């Protein structure tokens, strides 16, 4: 079913309709894939086809198009499960995005298992989506938060990991920093956490789109990611968790589809995964995510990673050669296709505005990681991020825009 293809970036770009767009005569240089990726026609088409040919509520109707919708939606779940090597599709809970997946764990597992005096261990590089839910839980139950620090290269300091794991119920950590690009050594961290009796939740929003992720090999307990950063649509994300944990957890949202039987004063819960999927799901989005998984598997995730590493090495070198520009984070071998940087004398927003005039889509701001900005000692950074469709020529255009910004700002004294 899945078409195997070499990752030829020229050919890849033809798969993404938006990349053919010209604005004021310039091609779009999209360097914000860490925020959301662009979508290939293969994904757009299956969603369109669902609405045009078999739009119906799944898991309900006995008529043909409802059965087609159910089959397509559940087939997507099987493909996602296979993509991350889950033991069963029952462990794949569809939700809105990574944020909702993490909040599901907070409300369902967290409220039942984290108590006053317990500790939750996080890191300084977390996205707000893997920080604020734990702040809220800690406040609610009287738990405390602890943090793993980063060094000046943007790598986690793990020397004191064992000490910091004492009394920890949950370690919640990003697989890959959305700001620094740092890829964290998850396997080693999980081993230490399990030895200390802690469960581990991974924020995989930036990892699953860009590298092979095997939840069983990583031996984690919860793994969350979003569809829209991996060529899929917005509005669909995944919580994977060990089946035994999911079986024991109380429901998250109550409503239709998540129940088995309902009486006026009580109800019993549906089987996994539907126990955690109340209400009509995001059907088209689920089907779209299935197509996105097929699309990425066509290349193989090792080829995706290899392409991004090549672009990242090229960009890291090119940006490092620009005067007065500081690149944050580790060398390319330890990072994914994300580069944050700052320029002396030019605020990141000014850089991004000038880049925008050249149709270079550059992110500027705190990247939903305000504590990390504080740690780096900057109010904001500019960020370029790459994907399967990124070309070296686009990195060149970014560098030209940065030099143009310097020329404009240096022209005045």
């Amino acid at each position: 079913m899945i078409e195997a293809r070499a990752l030829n970036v020229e050919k890849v770009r033809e798969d993404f309709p938006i990349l053919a767009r010209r604005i004021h005569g310039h091609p779009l240089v999209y360097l914000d894939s860490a925020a959301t990726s662009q979508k290939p026609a293969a994904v757009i088409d299956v969603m369109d086809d669902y609405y045009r040919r078999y739009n119906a509520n799944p898991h309900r109707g006995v008529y043909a198009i409802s059965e087609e919708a159910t089959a397509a939606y559940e087939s997507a779940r099987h493909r996602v499960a296979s993509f991350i090597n889950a033991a069963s599709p029952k462990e794949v809970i569809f939700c809105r995005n990574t944020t909702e997946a993490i909040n599901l764990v907070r409300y369902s597992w967290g409220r039942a298992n984290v108590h006053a005096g317990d500790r939750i261990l996080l890191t300084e590089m977390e996205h707000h989506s893997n920080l604020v839910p734990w702040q809220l839980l800690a406040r609610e139950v009287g738990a405390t938060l602890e943090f793993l620090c980063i060094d000046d290269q943007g790598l986690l300091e793990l020397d004191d990991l064992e000490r910091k794991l004492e009394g920890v119920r949950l370690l919640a950590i990003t697989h890959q920093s959305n700001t620094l690009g740092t890829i964290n050594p998850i396997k080693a961290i999980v081993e230490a956490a399990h030895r200390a009796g802690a469960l581990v939740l991974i924020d995989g929003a930036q990892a699953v789109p860009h590298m092979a992720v095997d939840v069983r090999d990583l031996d984690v307990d919860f793994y969350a990611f979003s569809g829209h950063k991996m060529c899929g649509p917005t509005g669909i994300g995944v919580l994977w968790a060990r089946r035994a944990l999911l079986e024991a957890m109380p429901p998250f949202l109550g409503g239709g589809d998540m129940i088995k039987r309902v009486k006026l004063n009580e109800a019993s819960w549906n089987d996994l995964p539907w126990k955690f999927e109340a209400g009509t799901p995001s059907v088209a989005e689920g089907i779209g995510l299935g197509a996105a998984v097929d699309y990425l598997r066509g290349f193989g995730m090792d080829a995706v990673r290899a392409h991004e590493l090549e672009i990242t090495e090229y960009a890291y070198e090119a940006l490092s050669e620009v005067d007065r520009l500081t690149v944050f984070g580790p060398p390319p071998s330890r990072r994914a296709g994300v580069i944050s940087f700052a320029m002396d004398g030019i605020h990141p927003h000014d850089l991004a505005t000038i880049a925008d005039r050249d149709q270079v889509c550059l992110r500027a701001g705190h990247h939903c990681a305000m504590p990390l900005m504080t740690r780096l000692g900057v109010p904001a950074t500019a960020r370029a991020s790459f994907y399967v469709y990124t070309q070296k020529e686009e990195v060149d255009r970014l560098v030209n825009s940065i030099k143009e910004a310097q020329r404009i700002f240096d022209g005045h004294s």
Partner: protein
Amino acid sequence: MATADDQFYREYILDHYKNPRNYGRLENPDISHEEDNPLCGDVVGMDFRVKEGVIDDIRFHGRGCAISQASASLLTERLKGMPLDDAKRINKDDVLGELGIEISPARIKCALLSLKVLKVGAYGLADEDEE
């Protein structure tokens, strides 16, 4: 490609960014107020000395992008010597007009941060007067 940038970052905006007017702090100001924009880390604060209802002296401080800092510098030039009641009537169109460039929706908060400082600061003093 360069010309569009040059128009956006007009010379006088970059001049105000690099050589801000009325930059610094006042000792014992009658009004002192600071606001920030957490989204991009822009900060603008203003100190006012008010004599007989007129802004006798003004200083601003802060850090951030060219738009936020130039906007603050331009605003202080306009405010110096202005009756406080007139200053309260300055609106966003006045501030954007003074900048004289087209501000995209994403940057409008940068451009208007100094106006927010003025509004909150000036109306704060008015409350005290009424007490």
